[in-house]
Structure formats: C-alpha cells, structure tokens
C-alpha cells in the first residue's frame, strides 16, 4: 500500500519559498509588533517601567478593567449556557434566525455598539431625563462600560457551546433525566462537565475582548481619569500626551494578557481535540449521525 507519493508534493524549492514568504509576512505583521510593545515599554529602563505601572491612574485603570470583566463574563456565561441548551437540545421555529441574532454583535462596529447605549441612557437619550431625575449615571460611568462590554462580548460563549453541544447529542442528559435526576442535577453533573473545555475556551476569548475593548468603551466612558478609564483607554491618553514609556508600559500589560490568552487557548484546543478523538473512538463509525429523530 505504501506506494510513493511524490506526485502530490511540491518541489523542495517551492516549499521553501512559500514557507519563507509566509513567515516573513507573519514576522512583519505579528511578531514584530509584539516584540516592539515590550521594547518600547522598557526603552527607558526597568525603573521607569515599574514607575509607570505604579502610577495611581494606571492602577485604577487596571482595577476597573478587571472589575468590568468580572461582572461581564459570568453574565455572558449564564446566557451562553442557556442559549446553547435551548438551541442544541430542542427544535423550535426561528432557530436559525436566533443564531444569526446572537452573532450580530460581532458584525456591529464597536463605535456603534457604544453609541446605542448613549442613545438609550445619555443625557439626551430615551431614558436620559428619567435617569438624571433619579440621579442615576450610566453613561460616563461604570455601568455604561459594563453594558458596552456585555454587548461586544455577547456571542463568544454561546458560539463556542452551540456547535459543541449539537455534536455531543442529548443521550447522556436523557439518561440522567430518565434515571430520576432533577434538571439542576443534570446541569451540574452531566451537561457542565461535558462542556467544560468549550466553556473555558469561550470564556478565554470573551475575557480577552472584555479587557481589551476600546471603541465601544471609549464612546461611553467619558475618559474620567481614575474613575472611568479602563486600561486600553489609559493607553490612549498617555500616548496622546506623548508619554511613550507610560503608554507602552500599560500596553505591555495588555500584551502579556494577550500572550496568556494565546497560551491558554492553545492548551484548551489541545484538550478539546483529545476529548473529541476519545469520543469518536468510543462511538461506532456511523454512530454520530444516528441522533434520535422525532
């Protein structure tokens, strides 16, 4: 069977050239910017770098960024699980329209995502008069930043879970229920353990976006220093003040976050691939297609 297959391989020099061109492209567009962030951040030496990060405004920006992610992620996880449960486990009319609507925030410009909350809650917005009468601030305050972040990270978890749960099928959950498990027992003991890697994957991606969002947050934040400045907005302010070291020091924290994201994502992808392979090995060749049709 091991007939030689030289016919479908490119000549060595072609392979070499194509690889080289691809690597040069990725080197210029990806590797160089990544290196440049850290070189610029450390350009004035390590003490200046640490000073820039110890600045109270930088500290409060980091804290606000973490706070917003801590509020937004659990809400989007709860939504993602609920949406994936309804879509992957049940048949209903308008399902594909619902999936398209869930994807919608990915297609909307971040600036438009911020603008819509200004139109709702800004001083001239639909609820603006009511809010100011009750002395509630949403725009140019933390609630607005949370709302904008919720919007832009909305699809991440659901998008990851829907295809995963569709592929897994509902046999295990049906078995749990017919053995007398309550809905919540089934959720905690069967569903969530089965989707944990996909869930984590969605959370990793959503977190990177939540902590790094700029456009939407910039529109609703008002850039009040020490109050409504997230880390990406802090980067912008310092950069526009020609504080190159400060801007890149703050940017390097976000670049580190990006690196952690990439590493975590790669590990989770590896785990998911292993579990899929195990799942496929445990099923008969055509087993996956035999979902219980109504």
């Amino acid at each position, binding site marked *: 069977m091991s007939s030689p297959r030289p016919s479908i391989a490119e000549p060595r020099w072609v392979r070499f050239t194509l*690889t080289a061109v691809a690597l040069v*492209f990725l080197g210029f567009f990806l590797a160089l910017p990544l290196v440049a962030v850290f070189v610029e951040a450390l350009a004035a030496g390590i003490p200046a770098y640490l000073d820039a990060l110890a600045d109270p405004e930088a500290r409060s920006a980091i804290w606000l960024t973490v706070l917003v992610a801590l509020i937004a992620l659990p809400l989007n996880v709860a939504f993602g699980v609920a949406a994936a449960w309804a879509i992957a*486990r049940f048949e209903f009319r308008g399902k594909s329209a619902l999936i398209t609507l869930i*994807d919608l925030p990915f*297609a909307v410009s971040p600036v438009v995502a911020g603008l819509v909350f200004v139109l709702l809650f800004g001083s001239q917005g639909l609820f603006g008069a009511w809010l100011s009468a009750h002395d509630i601030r949403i725009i140019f305050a933390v609630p607005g930043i949370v709302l904008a972040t919720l919007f832009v990270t909305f699809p991440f978890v659901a998008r990851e879970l829907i295809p995963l749960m569709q592929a897994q099928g509902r046999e295990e959950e049906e078995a749990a229920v017919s053995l007398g498990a309550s809905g919540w027992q089934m959720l905690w003991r069967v569903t969530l353990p089965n989707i944990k890697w996909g869930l984590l994957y969605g959370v990793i991606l959503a977190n990177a976006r939540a902590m790094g969002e700029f456009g939407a947050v910039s529109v609703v934040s008002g850039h009040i220093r020490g109050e409504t400045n997230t880390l990406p907005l802090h980067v*912008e302010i310092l950069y526009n003040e020609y504080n190159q070291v400060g801007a890149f020091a703050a940017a390097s924290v976000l670049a580190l976050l990006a690196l952690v994201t*990439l590493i975590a994502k790669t590990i989770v992808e590896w785990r998911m691939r292993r579990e899929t392979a195990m799942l496929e090995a445990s099923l008969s060749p055509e087993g996956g297609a035999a979902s219980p049709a109504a």
Partner: protein
Amino acid sequence: MARNVLPGFRLGLGYTLLYLSLIVLLPLAALVFKSAELSAAQFWDIATGERALASLRVTFGSALIAALINAAFGLLTAWVLVRYTFPGKRFVDALVDLPFALPTAVAGITLATLYAGNGWIGRHLEPLGFKVAFTPVGIVVALTFISLPFVVRTLQPVIEDIEPEIEEAAAVLGASRWQTFRLVLLPAILPALITGFTLAFSRAIGEYGSVIFIAGNMPFISEITPLLIVAKLEQYDIVGATALAVVMLVISFALLLAVNALQWRMANRHSAAGARR
C-alpha cells in the same frame, strides 16, 4: 423517542430571548428609533454629505485592500501551516490568533510607532518615498493586522479535509502541480476563501481602535466612518452620529447575512463534495 424528555426549554429559551433583547436588540432598536426623528431627506443629506461619503470611501477602500491582502497571504499561510513542516510551526500557528487577543489600542500605538518616520520599519521606508504612518496606507496596515486571522482560520480545516486521492488522480492524469492547484484545489477551497475574505472585510469596516492612532485622521483623506461618528458625537451632533451609525449597521447586517448564506452553502456543498464541474 417522539417526545423530548429534557427539561428547561422554556427557561433556557426565555432567558436567552430576554437577555438578547436587553443587551442587543433594545439598544439597536434605540438606534433605529432615534434615526426616525430624521426625515428621509435629512437622513440622505447626512449619509451622502461630502465628508461622510469621503469617510465611507476611505473605510471601504482600505478594508477592501486589507481583506484582499489577507486573502492572498492568508491562503499562503493556511497552506504552509497545513501542508509543510518547519521548526516552530506550532508556535507560528498559535501566533496567528494574536490579532484576536491583542487589544486594538495596543495594536494601534505599536503599528503607529513601527511605521512612523523614526520607527523600525518607517525608518527604512521613508527614504524610499513611502510614507505609511499618518496616511491612508497606515489604515490598510492596521486593518490588515486586525483581520489577519479570519482567512487563515477559515481555510485551515478545509485544506486539512482535502483528500489526497483527488490530487493524486490529477497528477496521474498528467496535470502539473500548478494545474492541480488551479483547477482542482482552488475550486474546492474557493467558498471558504470567500467566506474568510468576507469575515475579514466585515471586521475591518467597523474597526476603530487600531486605526485612529496610525491614520492621521485628516477629514476627506484618512478619516474613517467610525471616527466620524465619534467626532459628531463629541460635537453633540447625536442625530448626525446616529444616521451614520444606521448606514454602518445596515451594511454590517447585510455582510453578516452574506456570511451565513456562504457558510450554509459550504456546509451543503461539503456533503455533496466532488460534484463540482
């Protein structure tokens, strides 16, 4: 198994619809509601004002060029990552997702610094007469960066799925490697290439954070539409900002539907693979 015994359908769907309405649909409805304050003629005047049209030209022109660059180099990158082996390949593969993970503001200030006249790259380009930072070319660079992963990630699984037998058959029938690529492989991956291109294009149109630092932001020359929306908002021209946002929203929604249709066709074609031509 006629009946679905699983619990939680009403709760799951109800919560989904409620949350979707509160976070996404109601806010977007506010946009449409606000723009209804304008008459059709007023709306048309804003959307086709000179500065707005110029910004749309800049936005769509640069997004198109960036998406084309990514279609070409993304195809190359996906091919190299799937078919060839080289040291550090897994690292390179993971790095492709950097634009998804790196905040756009960080990308913006870094690219602006790299391509400025005294930057690592700009220093070598400017003596040759190429100015990148603070020109429309800078916008293309930023958009190429942020939309880089789409084509690669859409193509990789499709290239992985190509059966070697098809290429072997072409070779046995006397096709050169280039002919095989052009006549056998390219048609097979073309739908995925178009999908990746559309995803990259649609992301690039709305981009704001990475562009504003490198663009120079000169009205009529290097001002993108999202920036013009922000500029109008800062001048308290909320109605003007809303009208432009509606234009952007309609275009984004059309692109989203196009991508969905493409992916649906791809999924269908997948089951009827080999039936083409």
